[in-house]
């Protein structure tokens, strides 16, 4: 299994392509917070997004119902995206394992290697210290638009991205 200091582009591209649903744990209803940005972005890219925040549970934000916890989701999410600190990430990882998620993703600056080990032993894939929105933008030709280095060399025409929203 990969070490967690770096992930290859192929590995991330593959993972983001396989995943269809993402639970955002630590979702904020505030429009300027990173978790809101990521939820909106992934929703617009066609992922089924489950925002999770006990403080906002029962409300509808971004056109989606907010859940109190992973246990309350209508089905097992493919991926659990954790917007909490390293300590809280441990408990959430265990909940992710329990509900049958396949991927645990911890946001920028968050690493909990012990929780990662538990998840990997349970057969899950773990990504830490990354943002799925940034990685998606980087791997699929968007992030360069604002001058950010993608570290990718392209020799073919890339398909024009379409927002999936209209197809849903």
């Amino acid at each position: 299994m990969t070490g967690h200091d770096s992930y290859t582009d192929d590995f991330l591209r593959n993972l983001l392509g396989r995943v269809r649903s993402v639970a955002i744990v630590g979702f904020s209803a505030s429009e300027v917070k990173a978790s809101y940005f990521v939820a909106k972005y992934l929703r617009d890219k066609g992922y089924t997004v489950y925002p999770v925040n006990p403080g906002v549970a029962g409300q509808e934000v971004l056109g989606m119902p907010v859940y109190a916890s992973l246990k309350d989701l209508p089905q097992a999410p493919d991926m659990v995206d954790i917007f909490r600190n390293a300590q809280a990430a441990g408990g959430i990882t265990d909940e992710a394992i329990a509900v049958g998620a396949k991927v645990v993703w911890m946001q920028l600056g968050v690493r909990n290697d012990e929780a990662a080990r538990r998840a990997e032993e349970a057969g899950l894939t773990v990504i830490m210290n990354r943002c799925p929105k940034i990685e998606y933008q980087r791997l699929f030709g968007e992030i360069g638009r604002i001058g950010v280095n993608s570290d990718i060399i392209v020799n073919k025409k890339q398909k024009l991205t379409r927002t999936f929203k209209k197809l849903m």
Partner: protein
Amino acid sequence: MSEQKSFGFETRAIHAGAAPDPATGARQTPIYQTTSFVFDDIDDAASLFNLQKVGFIYSRLTNPTVAVLEERLANLEGGVGATATASGHSAQLLALFPLLQPGDEFISSTKLYGGSLNQFSNSFPRAFGWKAVFVDTDNPENVRSAITPKTKAIFVESLANPGGIVTDVEAIAKIADAAGIPLIVDNTLATPYLLNPIQWGATLVVHSTTKFLSGNGTSVGGVVIDSGKFDWSKSGKYPALSEPDPGYHGLKFHETFGHLAFTIHGHAVGLRDLGPSQAPLNAFLTLNGIETLPLRIQRHADNALKVAEFLEGHPAVEWVSYAGLKSSKYHTLAQKYLPKGAGAVLTFGVKGGYEAGVKVVESVELFSHLANIGDTRSLIIHPSSTTHRQLSPEGQASAGAGPEVVRLSVGLESVDDIIADLDQALKKAIR
């Protein structure tokens, strides 16, 4: 799971940031000579304005041709992102803009391009209340002792104008780091081919892309590149990046964008509110020059060394300042920081002082007498009456631009021709 490929500098100088155009398959980067861009729908427009997705709204903020240049330079310098500007001077403005408020200070080397010394001494204090504290960075301890609670940045040139000066970037970066302050390095004379300041601990790198990056004197431009490594929220000194931004409904750039905060702020606030955007055509021409950066800079440096050695041995020359020469007091630093070559800009003093210097400048027949560096054409100028003119005699002396100094930017002509032109001009000067 495949191994992560990594590519060499020469490859990235050609390819980083570029892609075949998705609409037409055009291989070379198109010149998107457009001010504005249509939106998919209202929600698409709102997302772009809120920075919830990145894309193109208006060429003051982002432009697809300019974006290729930004990504290319971020990649080559080993940074996370870049903001291109209309000039090197506006890159300096944009580098300091998120960091300083009226009443703040920044420490600056005395050994800078004359235009930068003017910007820092005159317009920044008068209009913005940013105070530059000038120190001789040859001794890094001078930097440390100049730090006050108001110091928000440190600014140096890696390889400094008017020629032959190398800054101990690593030592100053360590001092900056210990003080929780970002180090800004102007890397124009070296280019990322010869030196990567981020590798030595710099936080921000600025360039005048006008010079060696473009390489052929067509396009004025600048860029500021972020290492992505500075914690803008830690000390509370950088509220533009760490506190709610009123222009974006209370968004905290560093909290929301992490290591991309400085770059995104550079476009979303810096370019948006100040407006010194690089023109798409200029970015295109500069990108074309960057494709051959490794070849050109190596030849520039090789030619310059030969010219410096020729001058050092010339009876009409009093002294030569070029860090590639063993006689240079910066030679050891050059071996550490610039192993491939010490760049192509040098100064020398002609025997006979001011008058002789002027005579050399006016007698050349191949060199072009103009205010620029980093062209394929060899260039010559007398700094104390031009680029460093607005300084006091003391300021000129401490910048290495006294009245007898002649500055060369050695070009890519046949080196024998370059040397022959200097030889005949020097002979006229001492006749």
